[in-house]
């Protein structure tokens, strides 16, 4: 346990060792606020639904940029050789990195708090869907992170990690979308929509906290963290 905390701390601090973290956070806040508030006054509804439906698409680029360096850099610098020969289990290393990236994401999401405040000041906002939306955002984000983290362990090139993560997340997202579902046999449609990353997010954002949706995201997270551990072990199979 203390190993996980040490690694999480170290990885989290290294986000802020360069100005990139600040630039990331500011860009994220500016873009999401801009995209949300531009039509907000035209539509004239005190709802955050449009904000939450933006996030899966903004995350598509934002989250791979958080995770891309986590393993790729270790491999590039060769520090993975020390990390893997210290008395740390692979699971501890993976979880440490995952929690660090999650903390970074959580801080970024937390910093969007002026948006719900503004919305509720301007109109009569329904609090339920806003809380639901934030819960969904954390789960969706964590699922994206686990995918990005796994992809990062496959390469020593951060750019490749970024692009592959974006592609994989995009694919997992759109398989549940309407325009994909109409092209496949109707019998398969429920399966695809269940597997899609977006379907469950919509459910949660509607303010319905269903354990099936949370269970789905937890499964995705555990699955990709497990793949991550296997890919570290793969050096042992050579």
């Amino acid at each position: 346990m203390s190993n996980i905390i040490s690694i999480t701390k170290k990885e989290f601090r290294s986000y802020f060792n360069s100005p990139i973290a600040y630039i990331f956070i500011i860009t994220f806040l500016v873009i999401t606020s801009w995209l949300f508030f531009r039509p907000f006054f035209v539509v004239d509804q005190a709802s955050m639904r449009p904000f939450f439906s933006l996030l899966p698409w903004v995350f598509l680029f934002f989250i791979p940029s958080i995770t891309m360096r986590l393993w790729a850099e270790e491999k590039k610098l060769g520090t993975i050789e020390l990390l893997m020969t210290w008395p740390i289990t692979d699971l501890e290393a993976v979880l440490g990195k995952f929690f660090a990236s999650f903390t970074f994401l959580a801080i970024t999401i937390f910093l969007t708090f002026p948006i719900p405040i503004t919305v509720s000041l301007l109109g009569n906002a329904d609090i339920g869907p806003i809380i639901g939306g934030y819960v969904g955002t954390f789960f969706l984000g964590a699922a994206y992170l686990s995918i990005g983290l796994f992809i990062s362990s496959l390469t020593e090139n951060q750019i490749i990690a970024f692009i592959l993560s974006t592609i994989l997340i995009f694919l997992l997202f759109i398989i549940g979308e309407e325009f994909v579902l109409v092209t496949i046999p109707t019998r398969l449609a429920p399966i695809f929509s269940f597997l899609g990353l977006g379907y469950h997010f919509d459910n949660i954002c509607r303010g319905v906290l269903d354990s099936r949706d949370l269970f789905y995201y937890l499964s995705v997270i555990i699955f990709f963290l497990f793949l991550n551990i296997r890919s570290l072990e793969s050096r042992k199979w050579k």
Partner: protein
Amino acid sequence: MIEVKELTKRFGSTVAVDNISFEVNKGEILGFLGPNGAGKTTTMRILTCFFPPDSGKVNIEDLDLFENSLEIRKRVGYLPESSPLYQDMMVIDYLDFVGRIRKIPSNNLKKKIDDMIQICGLEGVVYKDIGKLSKGYRQRVGLAQTLIHDPDILILDEPTQGLDPNQIIEIRELIKEIGKEKTVILSSHILPEVSATCGRIVIINKGKIVGSGTPEEMISKAEGADIIFARVRGPKDLVESKLKEIKGLDKIQDISPQPDGTNLFKIKAQPKIDISEDIFFVVAQNGWSLSELTKEKATLEDVFKQLTTGSEANE
């Protein structure tokens, strides 16, 4: 102590480590010597549990590599080749991080870090980013990382790489000092390095052990003869043929005419025979002049060359 038995590791079709066995006792410094790509790093990576061998048995402090990997890793200090470090961390933060990973109790951690800073000579760079350090300093930070938890086993892959001559001597002394109570393996492709630090040497080439022993034993194994350089002024062919008549001479080789018109000969005598005086007399009797007569002791370099190129010829 480290026991390695019939260790083999393949990467695809290449055999990186081929059935090697050796032992290192407590208080001993074993030098691992071989050209680049000989299998030194692969062996060390197996011993440090970075990846497992394909076959063979490794016992470290009576713990089995497969069953007690985590326990072994606790007791080993490993300095990988070219000392990989997190570039964006400050030296002090890095040592603190490693200390915590190594489970040094937090009331002792500050003292341990200070000790390491002092032992490895890092006083001036404590608050610098590792990425901005020179190669020598990075190597020292790597060494501090290796030693911070006072491990019983030290595995050092080319520990003096990238250091300047003064630092090399310092680090060597440090390793010797530390090595008195620990089990140390260090690798190098620089021979003087190994003969200065290590009590015993294992020479490895193409994944196989081609020789082992103390530095002295290894030197006496080397051809067993000295090489003499003689610089003679006189007709080249005649000088050569006269010198060839000396009893005990094994080989004579003319090294192209020198700019001053003399001829330089490289002469090898048969084992344990000193023919330098004979050379002098032959030259003097014929009325030529001898302007140089130097003896060169066989060095580890020769053993190394002989063993590493020899095994190639056998294949």
